[in-house]
């Protein structure tokens, strides 16, 4: 039988029972819709990870105190914080793979200067910080090695701080007080914008770590060490090297766990997108259950349809339809039905992804492949679950089928 006729017959028979067909399609609609949302969330997360990597600076590695394993935390009094300036200096000295190393000291402080008063985060860092973060200046200069060594009270402002204190005027050459200590502003960073989780990266003041330690924090404790490699391919070996150096400086025995965690930018970004991962798994579960239930629904309706149309099948066979003709007819019908459900599901999925993106603030991306995914999934369900009823129709005995009331 001609293909166009087959599709026409299938569509007619689906339209004959509009409500029934619609309810049957519902499972496929939800299933395909969930698949599309899942793909959209996954793609969104992926592009966000890439964007974040760009944002963090090239080839960056972050070392934080404490073990990445949960059990390793309460190891002894010092375990909680065993990153010191000595560690950073050792890495800087002996890390052959590293293009730059900086300790990071975080404190919060009220900044007073210009026209305003602004609570912000202070980062005490070394000169390498600027190249590691790959963060250019809007105006002024970054501090020098001499500034660091001499514990000078100099500050580089993030653009948010600059705007809030100086209301658009150039702050370079002006003064800013941090906890009553006057700092002179020597530079302003370019605007970098928000991170994926919504933190304003420009709400920051950068000062030499030596100054931070002596004037603000007053302890040898450091929060992070940032490092960078010369090229992305060096990252794995650099991580190995850093691990060995830190274990040595912390005098860890062969059986001791690391009391620090080394992560590269990819690992960091992935950790940040953990929630969307969970969401993706949930959607995958919903999608597969819906497709299964939808498929069973189609099989059920097709079996009903075969019984209802036994006489029609008998007539078709009497006038020369082969088993394969009848099989194809019913298979086309179930595939058309599930494809229709798939197309509706596609639209529902697009709408769902857009709404989810609005509500959660996640970036979602609906790629053109989604159309192919919807078509393939729904057609596969239609063929798989339509086959048994179609086989049943095709194997009917024409005489008995004709006699069927």
């Amino acid at each position, binding site marked *: 039988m001609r293909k166009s006729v087959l599709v026409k017959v299938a569509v007619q028979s689906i339209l004959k029972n509009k409500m029934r067909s619609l309810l049957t399609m519902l499972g496929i609609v939800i299933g395909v819709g969930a698949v599309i949302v899942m793909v959209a969330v996954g793609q969104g997360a992926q592009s966000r990870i890439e964007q974040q990597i760009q944002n963090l600076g090239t080839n960056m590695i972050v070392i934080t105190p404490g073990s990445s394993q949960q059990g390793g935390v309460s190891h002894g009094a010092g375990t909680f914080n065993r990153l010191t300036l000595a560690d950073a200096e050792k890495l800087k000295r002996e890390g052959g793979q590293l293009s730059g190393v900086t300790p990071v000291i975080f404190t919060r402080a009220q900044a007073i200067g210009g026209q305003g008063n602004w609570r912000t985060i202070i980062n005490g860092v070394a000169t390498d910080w600027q190249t590691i973060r790959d963060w250019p200046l809007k105006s002024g200069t970054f501090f020098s090695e001499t500034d660091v060594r001499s514990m000078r009270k100099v500050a580089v402002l993030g653009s948010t701080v600059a705007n809030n204190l100086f209301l658009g005027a150039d702050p370079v050459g002006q003064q800013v007080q941090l906890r009553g200590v006057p700092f002179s502003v020597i530079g302003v960073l370019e605007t970098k914008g928000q991170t994926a989780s919504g933190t304003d990266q420009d709400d920051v003041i950068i000062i030499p770590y030596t100054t931070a330690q002596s004037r603000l924090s007053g302890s040898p404790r450091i929060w992070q060490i940032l490092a960078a490699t010369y090229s992305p391919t060096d990252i794995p070996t650099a991580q190995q090297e850093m691990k060995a150096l830190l274990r040595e400086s912390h005098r860890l025995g062969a059986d001791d766990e690391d009391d620090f965690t080394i992560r590269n930018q990819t690992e960091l970004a992935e950790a940040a997108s953990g929630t969307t991962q969970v969401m993706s798994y949930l959607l995958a579960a919903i999608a597969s259950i819906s497709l299964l239930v939808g498929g069973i629904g189609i099989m059920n309706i097709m079996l009903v349809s075969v019984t209802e149309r036994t006489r029609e099948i008998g007539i078709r066979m009497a006038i*020369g339809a082969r088993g394969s003709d009848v099989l194809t007819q019913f298979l086309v019908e179930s595939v058309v039905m599930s494809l229709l459900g798939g197309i509706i599901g596609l639209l529902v999925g697009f709408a769902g992804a857009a709404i989810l993106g609005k509500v959660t603030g996640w970036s979602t991306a609906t790629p053109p492949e989604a159309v192919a995914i919807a078509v393939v999934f729904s057609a596969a369900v239609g063929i798989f679950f339509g086959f048994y009823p179609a086989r049943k129709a095709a194997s009917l005995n024409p005489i008995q089928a004709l006699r069927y009331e």
Partner: protein
Amino acid sequence: MPDAASGTPPVIHIEAATKVYEMGKNKVRALRGVDLQVERGEMIAVMGASGSGKSTLMNILGCLDTPTSGSYHLDGIRVDGLTRNELAQLRNEKLGFVFQGFNLLSRTSALDNVELPLLYDHSGRKRDTKALAAEALQRVGLGDRMDHHPSELSGGQQQRVAIARALVTQPSLLLADEPTGNLDSRTSVEVMALFQELNDQGITILLVTHEHYISRYARREVEVRDGRIIRDEPVRDRHVAKVDLSGIPDQDPVAAT
């Protein structure tokens, strides 16, 4: 089995055909050795009491079923032993069916119903199936009812659509199992007039009927009893349905034609 004289085989040549239905331990012998030969251009009526085996014979002649034993040649082709697909192809190419209950697809127009057998043609030849279907409908006098659905047609008209569907493939044999069983007497005669007209144009027709006044329109009459043919003779006082029609009052002008 070519006929030596004319060179064309008989349309039906069935020999010693039996059919046994096995119902658990019971065996129903529906046919007990049937011999029948029908030549091209014949119009033959099969008579017999209920349960005598007429429909069983029709199913075998119509390639819907195969005999338990015996041989059957349709148009010179041996039918017993063919596969399901081969039987389907034979039904499509060589046979046209007309049933008592019309058996049209509801919610499908008259034209689409008639076109249907052409769509199951596996020979691959290209034909204008719609035009052929329209032509067949014109032939049975329903040229103005092509877009009507079965529910919008009278019983007689539905049976004409069924006849058009049987004719559209230009079959060797038209089989009709009680074609007038669901029709009133005037409409029955009208359908028989159509059969006679088609037969005059050279179409071979075999029909099953209970009614004597129907079998009079055939050229030959066969009687089946207990699965055997007990009588096979030409119809002596053959009636012409067209003539009879003028004698029957047109009681229900809407239902008729």
